[in-house]
């Protein structure tokens, strides 16, 4: 795609985070989830993305904590590798090459050194059949390990990771596909199959949708297409198996999960209600309703304190033990759902707009909402509820959709159009006008106009007036009218405030208006009626002139800006781009192009035209007054581009190269056919972004206790002392617990401790640094000691060869670096240090006395 050396098309935001089940780490501090080609690590408390684990070259299909080491995580990908990561530091430890695409990954503590993955049968990529295989991970010190010894466990399994689960400490594995449940016992090396009938009398749907196994008990829970949950027991016999049925969901159960102790079963589906069933008392249920969108995955933290649900609107919700939503990680909401339903040629969706106030990108979000998405920070700012109705999660129900939105120039007014079409009834359209409230910093509903037109609204635009008194909105509709709406101050002071009312209704020979556009100084309004463009004066509502260039109805209208404001550009359905001069009222030029979208940069004279040619979209950027395009880019993406926007930059670029000048003031964003948000960047910008992203690591590993504050202060001082000489200062401060005395003091119960006066001196002693033990040498010792300790801890918790190797390697590296830094000290610096040390003592002594 890189055609012009320095301008390239890049993905912008909108990474999908609801693709696979997220994983909560053992200490419940981090949440890992697969997102495109990387694994994202989020903090469960702050919702921030801490870092990405980047390395895979294709879609990541699964994330799994390593059962034998809770600080490491496996990830698998379509690119045929399984990678092992240290997620706290974001380091790739190992890469296992499998050789064929991996669709999901499982492991159990019972099976050491073995992981189970789902791969296509026969290693064929296009095969529709999948098998579960066990992979023995070879023990080797290399980074890149080939592990191609696969042993099949189950064949013909589903590629959906929710359909396979390990049971009771890894004794058996359960897999469901279609109407069949397979259970494979590892000890007996025997598998049992249970199948259900196609459907029962009541029109139920018995297909399996997900499987979960009880962690302590021999029980398998399966979800079904008709919303039933079956609990299978006694399945180690072919004939005598039993199951009980639970039914609450009215649509397919999309995810099931047992809590770690097995006391509760969680289930979720399209209803967006998290249901908690008590194990063995299934009549008792707890609900957590209105989570926002259909639940796709449920995960529970290993200590059972946190639940997390991922939703179909690209959102992960973190829930504290089924009572309270504690955090919401929200990505850019994809609106693929909408595109699927629209008929060809007419899309039920708002344009991309930029909020003039917050510079956020505004587009459809959750059903009935507009999402405000910060382009600079790649983060969803908030969702504005437009429809303000309880969303009923039911398949096949027609909902209100936000189809049009427009901001006025200053961002104080937002106009939205929502519509709902039922098969039998009339179209319901509401036009809503929202005023920006300075106090709450959000939009507040001012006026609702129900049925503003008798048919669908085709276009809507605000008059970009310089004086704020005469705010005006023009809407055009299929009913053949265009209407001007004006903010009217009420006649009586008792009314709440100004509201909007219709000011003018215009028609032109009964033709249907398609688009409308105000000129830059808002003295002219252009409304296109099929093949004719009519130009009106919005002050007197006189029809000034008509312009027409048949054949072909007008598709897009655009006034030029700044020095080109005398031009009016239009595209017709018959592949024509016309430019009229409004001073002479004549056609200035026209050219034959199949333009799918024409839009003007609000900050410059530039216009962008997306042309559809042979399944690909080309981009031309031009000035209406100049015959040659400023910039052209062939094959920006496949399919037609129908949504694009110029977003003003926060800081102007100062590029002077000719073909990137048009990106100086604003940036062009567009949505592809598959709803990917793309943008154009220059090389200079890329470099700057890379530099800034490195400083974004957030450190929240140490809890802020009063004790930490005391010790931390001490540490900080110590660190400041080291600063001039040590290059290691940037490293994280070691935890104070590393000192034996402090540990003793903190961890021994209070009633068995000796008297405080006795402890105090010991405690203070432990905090002091002996004067004789000098800088470089001291630090080396200390470092080494710390590393030793941490190493010991590691070994205490798990006897894992590899990790200790890695650790000791790291330790060695750090020791070396410290040694390198030490000799750089001069005598003067040492003296200075000593002085500071003395100061330090006196401060502590003072503290003790008081």
């Amino acid at each position: 795609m890189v055609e012009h050396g320095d301008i390239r098309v890049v993905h912008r935001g909108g990474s999908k985070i609801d693709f696979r089940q997220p994983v909560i780490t053992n200490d419940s501090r981090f949440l890992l989830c697969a997102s495109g080609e990387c694994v994202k690590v989020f903090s469960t408390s702050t919702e921030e993305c801490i870092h990405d684990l980047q390395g895979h070259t294709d879609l990541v299909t699964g994330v799994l904590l390593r059962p034998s080491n809770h600080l490491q995580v496996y990830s698998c990908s379509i690119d045929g590798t399984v990678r092992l990561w240290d997620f706290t530091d974001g380091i790739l430890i190992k890469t296992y090459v499998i050789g064929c695409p991996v669709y999901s990954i499982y492991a159990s503590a019972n099976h050491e050194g073995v992981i189970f993955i789902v791969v296509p049968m026969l290693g064929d990529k296009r095969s529709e059949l999948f098998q579960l295989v066990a992979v023995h991970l070879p023990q080797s010190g290399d980074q890149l390990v080939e592990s191609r010894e696969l042993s099949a466990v189950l064949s013909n399994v589903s590629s959906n990771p929710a359909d396979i689960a390990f049971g009771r400490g890894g004794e058996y594995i359960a897999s469901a596909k279609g109407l069949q449940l397979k259970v494979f016992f590892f000890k007996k090396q025997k598998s049992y199959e249970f199948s259900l009938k196609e459907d029962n009398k009541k029109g139920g749907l018995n297909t399996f949708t997900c499987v979960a196994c009880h962690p302590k008990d021999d029980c398998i829970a399966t979800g079904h297409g008709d919303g039933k949950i079956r609990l299978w027991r006694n399945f180690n016999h072919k004939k005598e198996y039993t199951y009980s049925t639970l039914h609450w969901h009215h649509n397919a159960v999309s995810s099931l999960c047992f809590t770690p102790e097995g006391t509760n079963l969680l289930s979720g589906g399209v209803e967006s209600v998290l249901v908690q069933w008590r194990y063995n008392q299934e009549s008792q249920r707890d609900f957590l309703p209105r989570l926002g969108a259909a639940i796709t995955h449920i995960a529970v933290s290993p200590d059972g304190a946190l639940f997390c649900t991922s939703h179909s609107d690209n959102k992960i919700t973190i829930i504290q033990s089924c009572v309270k939503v504690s955090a919401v990680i929200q990505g850019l909401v994809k609106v693929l759902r909408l595109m699927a339903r629209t008929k060809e040629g007419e899309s039920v969706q708002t344009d991309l707009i930029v909020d003039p106030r917050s510079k956020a990108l505004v587009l459809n979000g959750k059903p009935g909402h507009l999402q405000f998405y910060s382009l600079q920070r790649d983060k969803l700012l908030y969702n504005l509820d437009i429809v303000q109705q309880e969303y009923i999660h039911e398949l096949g129900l027609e909902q209100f959709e936000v189809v049009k939105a427009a901001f006025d120039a200053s961002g104080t007014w937002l106009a939205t159009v929502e519509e709902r079409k039922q098969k039998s009834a009339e179209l319901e359209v509401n036009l809503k006008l929202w005023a920006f409230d300075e106090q709450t910093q959000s939009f507040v509903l001012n006026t609702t106009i129900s049925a503003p037109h008798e048919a669908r609204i085709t276009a809507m635009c605000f008059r970009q007036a310089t004086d704020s008194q005469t705010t005006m909105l023009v809407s055009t509709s299929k009913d053949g009218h265009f209407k001007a709406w004006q903010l009217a101050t009420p006649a009586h002071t008792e009314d709440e405030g100004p509201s909007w009312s219709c000011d003018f209704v215009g028609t032109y020979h009964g033709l249907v208006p398609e688009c409308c556009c105000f000129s830059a100084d808002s003295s002219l309004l252009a409304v296109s009626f099929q093949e004719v463009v009519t130009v009106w004066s919005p002050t007197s509502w006189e029809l000034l002139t008509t312009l027409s260039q048949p054949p072909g109805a007008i598709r897009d209208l655009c006034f030029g800006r700044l020095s080109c404001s005398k031009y009016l550009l239009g595209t017709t359905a018959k592949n024509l781009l016309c430019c009229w001069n409004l001073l002479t009222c004549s056609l200035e030029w026209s050219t034959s192009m199949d333009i799918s979208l024409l839009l003007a940069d609000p900050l410059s004279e530039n216009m962008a035209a997306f042309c559809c040619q042979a399944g690909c979209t080309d981009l031309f950027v031009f000035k209406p007054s100049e015959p040659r395009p400023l910039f052209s880019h062939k094959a920006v993406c496949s399919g037609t581009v129908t949504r694009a926007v110029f977003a003003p930059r926060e800081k102007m670029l100062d590029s002077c190269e000719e073909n990137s000048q048009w990106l100086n003031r604003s940036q062009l964003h567009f949505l592809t056919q598959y709803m990917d948000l793309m943008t154009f960047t220059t090389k200079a910008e890329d470099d700057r972004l890379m530099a800034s992203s490195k400083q974004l690591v957030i450190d929240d590993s140490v809890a802020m206790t009063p004790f930490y504050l005391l010790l931390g202060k001490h540490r900080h001082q110590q660190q400041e002392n080291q600063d001039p000489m040590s290059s290691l200062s940037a490293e994280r401060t070691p935890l104070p617990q590393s000192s034996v005395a402090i540990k003793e003091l903190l961890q021994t119960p209070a009633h068995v401790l000796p008297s405080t006066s006795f402890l105090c001196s010991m405690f203070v002693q432990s905090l002091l640094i002996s004067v004789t033990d000098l800088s470089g040498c001291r630090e080396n010792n200390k470092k080494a000691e710390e590393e030793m300790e941490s190493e010991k801890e590691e070994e205490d918790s798990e006897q894992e060869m590899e990790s200790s190797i890695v650790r000791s390697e790291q330790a060695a590296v750090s020791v070396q670096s410290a040694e390198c830094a030490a000799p750089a000290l001069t005598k003067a610096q040492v003296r200075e240090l000593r002085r500071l040390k003395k100061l330090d003592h006196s401060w502590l002594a003072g503290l003790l006395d008081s």
Partner: protein
Amino acid sequence: MASFKPTNIPVYPKLGEKVTQDTLYWKNYKAPVQIKEFGAITNIDFSPVTPHNFAVTAFTRIHIYGPFSQEPVKTFTRFKDTAYCGRFRSDGQLLVAGCEDSVVRLFDVGGKVALRMFRGHTKAVHVTDFTSDRYQILTGSDDYTCRLWDIPNATELNVYQEHTDYIRCGITSKLNRDLFITGSYDHTLKVFDARVDKSVMSMDHGQPIESLLLYPSEGLLVSAGGRYVKVWDLLKGGQPLVSLRNHHKTVTCLALSSNGQRLLSASLDRHVKVYSTTNYKVVHNFDYAASILSLALAPDDESIVVGMTNSILSIKHRKSPEESREISGQQRRRPSYRVFVKGKNYVPKQDDYLVSKPVKQYLAKYDKQLKKFNVSKALDCALEKWIRLRNPEVPVAVIKELDRRGTLKNALAGRDEQQLSRLLSFLIGNLVDMRFAPVLVVAAEMILDIYRSILGQSPVIDRQLLRMQDLLEREIDYQKELVEVLGMLDTMFASSLPKMEVPCSSGFFVQNCSVLSGFFCWISCEGK
């Protein structure tokens, strides 16, 4: 977890009059006291001195009422025929009245017998008034003349014979003892100066003049005649200032509120209109039971007295400040309020540790049921009598919400006779309301669909269905007429304004009509 979003009840613009300062002021009167007189009440006049008694001229009598009495404190009955225009002198001591028998009588307010009788007119005297020097009387008569009389001598001072028709109204200047104005059925009003023999100013009202009024500054003159009320600027030589046409029958009487800010006009169309004297817009409107002949306001607007053709005198007294405060005082005295806010207005200090409590969401009854997906119960709650009658938009909004959820059919089905008749009566009441029609037509169709099998089993339901059919028939006729009118208007607009864009609004009616007529066909088929 988002909270439950309650059903959106749309706020419809209020169709009635808006609450303004004026409506508050003019509504602040007690219920009227109604007194039956012997005949049509032609004139009411307030005494200028306290206690501001007022003289009511009706048939052959003049009654004088005290400000709060319901019985007359004094009655003058010595009229041979119908009395007209009983008026007080500016000291409140003397009263003058004309009569059908052409004799003008002067009474002492304390006495019974006429002090003076002025004979000279040849026909009924409808106009009498004292001049501002208190010693002369102005009269106007159906013999086309107006005369000035001297009270002490009971002699005629001057005769003016300029009008060419009955003189039915006249007024003397309060500032100048020589100036007076008369209005006549010959459409003119004339300003006379007693120092000269001729009128000094003449204005054409265009209609027979019924009433005259001078502003306190006497720079402006108001005349009422026909359907028009006209204001004239006397200082500019009788230049017409404004012409008001707010009544649809003859305006009979004019009055000015005490501060001169509001002008009142009473008419045979049974309305009293209140105009602002700054912009001459109608700011308030009173309705009465019969055509109004006379109207008077007590000083300081303490009471409004209206006399009507059906010989009923209606007196409205202003509510005393205590009374109007009493209502609000009762509300404030509700005991539970303090208990509710107990501790809630406590402002936390700097070191206080705040424990935030989740705000409880209060839902309406129907919303509580909707939250639980109890659709039938939700509809029942919304159809409770007081909601149904007071806020019909609530049941409509709930029906709409149920329709949106796709569960309206479930909510409507399975009802017994009583519940169904309640539903139907609500539909009959609101089906043709333009605001609710689109929603309710859907519901009505569903009801007919669901209950078609049991038609004819219950007389109550059948009767209601027939009523609905009637209602729809009438509505369709009405809509057709409207469309016809619109068509006429469109042709007229098209012919008179060929170049202007015509805002075409006929679409809605046509559409609405088509919906209703389609539905009507359906219901009539069902009926058969």
